[in-house]
């Protein structure tokens, strides 16, 4: 049954799967942060779009080897992630000072937001095309 209705959804490009689009956005964000298409990513604990399209990412099993950590919750972040670059999926994650930015839904629309001071602190220079998503804290 799922198959038959997928046809409905795939007819128009605007109805491309939302998870696929979300994974593409995460891909651009991680490249913009690390300047590396093969950056090592640790996901804590699960993000649907990345779980589903994990082949698009270089996922690692533990934080120690990661270049960037994508978080779905600020709870239970492994101690080994302590000094890593954290990127959130909710606006509230930005309350954690170790989170440099987030991709989240707010006010009925998807948003990308980075805090400049946190980028500077971590010596991260984003591609200039991301300037519009950078704000002072």
């Amino acid at each position: 049954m799922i198959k038959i209705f997928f046809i409905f959804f795939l007819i128009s490009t605007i109805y491309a799967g939302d998870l696929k689009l979300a994974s593409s956005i995460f891909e651009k964000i991680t490249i913009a942060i690390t300047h590396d298409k093969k950056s090592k990513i640790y996901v804590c604990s699960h993000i649907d779009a990345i779980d589903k399209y994990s082949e698009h990412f270089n996922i690692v099993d533990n934080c120690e080897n990661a270049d960037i950590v994508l978080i779905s919750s600020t709870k239970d972040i492994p101690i080994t992630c302590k000094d890593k670059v954290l990127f959130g999926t909710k606006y509230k994650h930005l309350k954690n000072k170790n989170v440099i930015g987030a991709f989240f839904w707010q006010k009925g629309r998807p948003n990308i937001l980075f805090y400049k001071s946190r980028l500077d602190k971590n010596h991260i220079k984003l591609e200039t095309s991301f300037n519009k998503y950078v704000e002072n804290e």
Partner: protein
Amino acid sequence: MKSLYILFFVISISLFADDLDALLDNYEQASDLSQKTKKESAGNLIVYTRDDLERMQVESLKDILKSLRFFSYAENRMAQTDIFNGDPVSYYSQTVRVYLNNTELLTSLTGSGLIMFGNMEMDFIDHVEIYQGFPSFDFGIEPATIVIRLYSKSAQHDEGGRVKVQVGSYGTNKQNIYYASSEEEYDYFFYANRNDEKKDEYEHDGEILRRDKRTERFYGSINNEQHKLELHIQKTTADAFLGSLVGGVPSSTKIESQFINISTESKFMNNSLVVNLSYIDEEEDLAYRYNTPLMMYVPPATFIPVNTFDQNIYQEALTASVKKYWDINGHDISVGLQYRYKHFDIDDYIFTPIIPPIGPTNKTYNTQNIYSLFIQDEISLNENNLLSLSFMNQYYDRNKDASHLHTSQVRLGYTYSKDKFVSKTFISRQEFAPEPYMVISPAYGNIELDPDVYTSIYQELSYTLPKVIYRTVFGAGYNERAPILNDLGQMTNLEHNINGYFASLEFTYKFRDKDKLELQANAFYIENPFESYDLVRHYNYLARLLNTVGKFDIFNELVAHNGYAEQSSSYDYSMGIKYEATRDLHFSVKGENLFNDSLTWSYFNTVAPTVDKVTVPTIERRVLFSMEYLF
């Protein structure tokens, strides 16, 4: 060479930025929550996405219902929504079911919540699905001809808040606010609204008839991944226009009502087991005053002049349902066990001067238990063919003098999909139990009323291209034992069948990403229940244009009717402009029925010794100015 590199660098950066912005735009559209909730096989589906509702400036459910395929927005003689209205019976839309998320909004007496929520403001609604053609049984405990599903906004997409203020014609004004937040363990959403809807006044027999309505609403939800708790409170104070009594024009009418609903939803076993509980408590006070005494008909043949009528109506409903879903070798099987308890009390009423009791009110029932079971199997024959078999059964346990009832429904659906072409066929035979108001009404109730039966076939064909959608819907059906008023003014089952035929042609053209043209032509033929084989021919047409130009969203809509309820042709033209001053601050203006030529509706004032009717427009001409601020 260096400048070529610089040029290449600038272009690639700008493309990258545009690419990401476009991705975010596409992601926003693809994430529309209707993609996750709609059920294509459940009926002839009409979806209003978040984007549609915002760009059309849909203020109330009425704004959608007025362009509903085959029908129109209509109200009863008390200015309450009743799209199948057959005056002077106070409600005829008992088979139209309204849901907020997975909770049915109903009143125990009418069986349907359309009477109370048909004009509800839509500021806390994310998207709307309307299922026509005797939809799937897994929506509710009882069958329906039309199911309207409203989905509230939530923290999933609307974290943050919004405040909105609106002013408009006749002093209409509205203020509301919502706030949503997503915490680590749970999400919550709160909404509060105050809406003072003012309308034109109509003079008849020296009295002024009014349809103003003030609504206050609170809706709150809190949920985690497994459980959801919702609280919904609505309080209204409204003019009751002509009132429910036939025989004179009131000098004033008033309805005060309070609706409280608390509901829960829990999901277990990897979301394959869903348990819903809902409790509704509702109270309504009616007050009619007459300068010229109303000539109250008291059977068998007496008219008594009355000056006032006051009534308190109390209703409650408890609903519990358990649904289980299995996916076994191409079979999507769902089974539901459902129970509903209804209690209602309409006996607290008084006329001045006091008149003898009318009808057998005290001897009929005031409590009803409904036990319902449905089984549905959606069989994927292969990747192009889906067969859907459904069966539902209800047992109505009614107290006092009312006998028990047993009703059942069967439905067969077939969906064929190949590339861009989709065909949906639905055949059903469904019994509808009479709702309590049809049985216990002192004016027209009949305890002997039997369930009526609808047998129908609907066929929908659609062909979808990247920019164009062609769709046609057509069908036929007949209604056995339809409940209508007989010559004595009592509800009775019609002895002959009522045949109906309907057809719709639809064309949607998305000529740019944010520009859309919709055209519809609908025809609906139905036999006049009072004069069999005399067809009522109703045609309605829709042209709707949505454009985005820079920071402006522009909406144009023309709804035309011909032949409906024996009224003359009507043309309801509406337009709106929304200006996005900043991403968080929006201003809008909307004009409704700008030609002042919308559909009119007639209500009986007197039936004896002469017939006199009051005729008013269903949609009035008005202009609204709004401001929204997101925070």
